[in-house]
């Protein structure tokens, strides 16, 4: 039995331990916003927040998520009530096919919580663990800059 705290919800899962967190979030909890692409920690698609820090969930065992607060893209906003970072990505069109977008948004959220007023270069470095195969990088950086401005306004 594994107990996970995901998106403010507590769940007990009757599963075997030799599973990755990404796999369990997707297949047992239906949180398919957790994207699995490279499965090797390089692309950042599977990024989730664990106690507020971005982590590649494809390299974590499901048990390693126990006792921690896990947030996936499903946990930060709804279509009617988007997170400011999500809004910014839509407004700046920070995606093309959008497969990688959840990972980018969660990485950006954790980054902006620590650095609310970043430079363009700081954003690029902070996003360096997320790969966008469509190559929407210039738009993504603009989206994060816009998100930063929005969040400063709210603060």
């Amino acid at each position, binding site marked *: 039995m594994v107990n996970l705290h995901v998106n403010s919800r507590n769940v007990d899962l009757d599963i075997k331990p*030799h599973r990755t967190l990404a796999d369990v979030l997707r297949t047992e909890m239906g949180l398919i916003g957790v994207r699995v692409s490279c499965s*090797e*920690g*390089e692309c950042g698609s599977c990024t989730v927040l664990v106690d507020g820090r*971005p*982590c590649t969930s494809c390299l*974590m*065992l499901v*048990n390693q998520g126990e006792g921690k607060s896990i947030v996936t893209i499903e946990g930060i906003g709804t279509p009617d009530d988007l997170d400011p970072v999500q809004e910014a990505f839509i407004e700046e069109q920070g995606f093309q096919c959008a497969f990688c977008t959840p990972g980018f948004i969660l990485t950006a959220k954790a980054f902006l919580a620590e650095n609310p007023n970043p430079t363009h270069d700081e954003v690029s470095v902070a996003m360096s663990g997320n790969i966008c195969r469509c190559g929407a990088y210039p738009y993504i950086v603009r989206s994060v800059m816009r998100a930063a401005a929005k969040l400063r306004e709210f603060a």
Partner: protein
Amino acid sequence: MRSEFQYRRPASIDEAVAMKADLGTTAMYWAGGTDMVLHWMRSIHSPELCIDITRIEGLRGIEIDRDSIRIGAMTSLDELDRSADRHCLLNTLSDITKLMCTPQTRTIATVGGNLCNASPAADLSPAFVAMNADAVLAGPKGRRRVRMEEFFLGVNKTSLSGGELLEEIRIPLNPDLKVVASYRRIDRTVVDIALVNASSCISVDSDGVINGCGIALGAVAPVILRVSDAETLLLGLSVRELGRDREELQKVEELSAIAAKPISDVRASAEYRRQMVKVMVRRTLQDCAIQLKA
């Protein structure tokens, strides 16, 4: 097929060590898993028991006192990165972590995992060797200290045996000396392992005379190499000489290139690697000179 395994989360070092000693090679210590998950997926390792040591109190964190810096094995690369302003050697290590993995893998990857995986190209290993660090190993029969350069025995091979785990790394400090370190590597892309890397660590007394020196090379042999004969040449020199084109420096470069036993592979030829050893060592020494001037 990847193996099915049981999962345990021991609460103490003793409990972990007892589990491992009991079950031997079928049980594996699991830290951040950033190397382990890939090894498991590819069936390089097929553990029957995963001993998750990331939550053991006392294996995490960084402490500095008069005589040493202690880095717990389960300190994440991200935590090491954030320790930069606590000591100038930690500042060097912090810069190294920025070259490693990606931001979201650095939050889970650990210092101990990087060392225990014993890749000849691992980024932290040469720096710890140059800094004259010790590995503190905890085993069923108690603790022992191993010099960092003796910790590595081959590709993915360490001197850990009989259930031992790496508890911490200790970097010695001498309160009477000023110490600085530098690390350089050549890579093809950002998320790539080093073709060649090198690290130097220099201690000077209040007159600016070099009193301690460590030079280590990575990715040019199955283990991290320490170039002791080259280190000796620099002792007694004034730090001002480090930036200049002195005969000793050329000798240091040559001895380093001779010590290197590089291979040719898809990444680079042995000849290129040997040549680059000289350049890397020279640059790390220049970096040290610049830091000491500041």
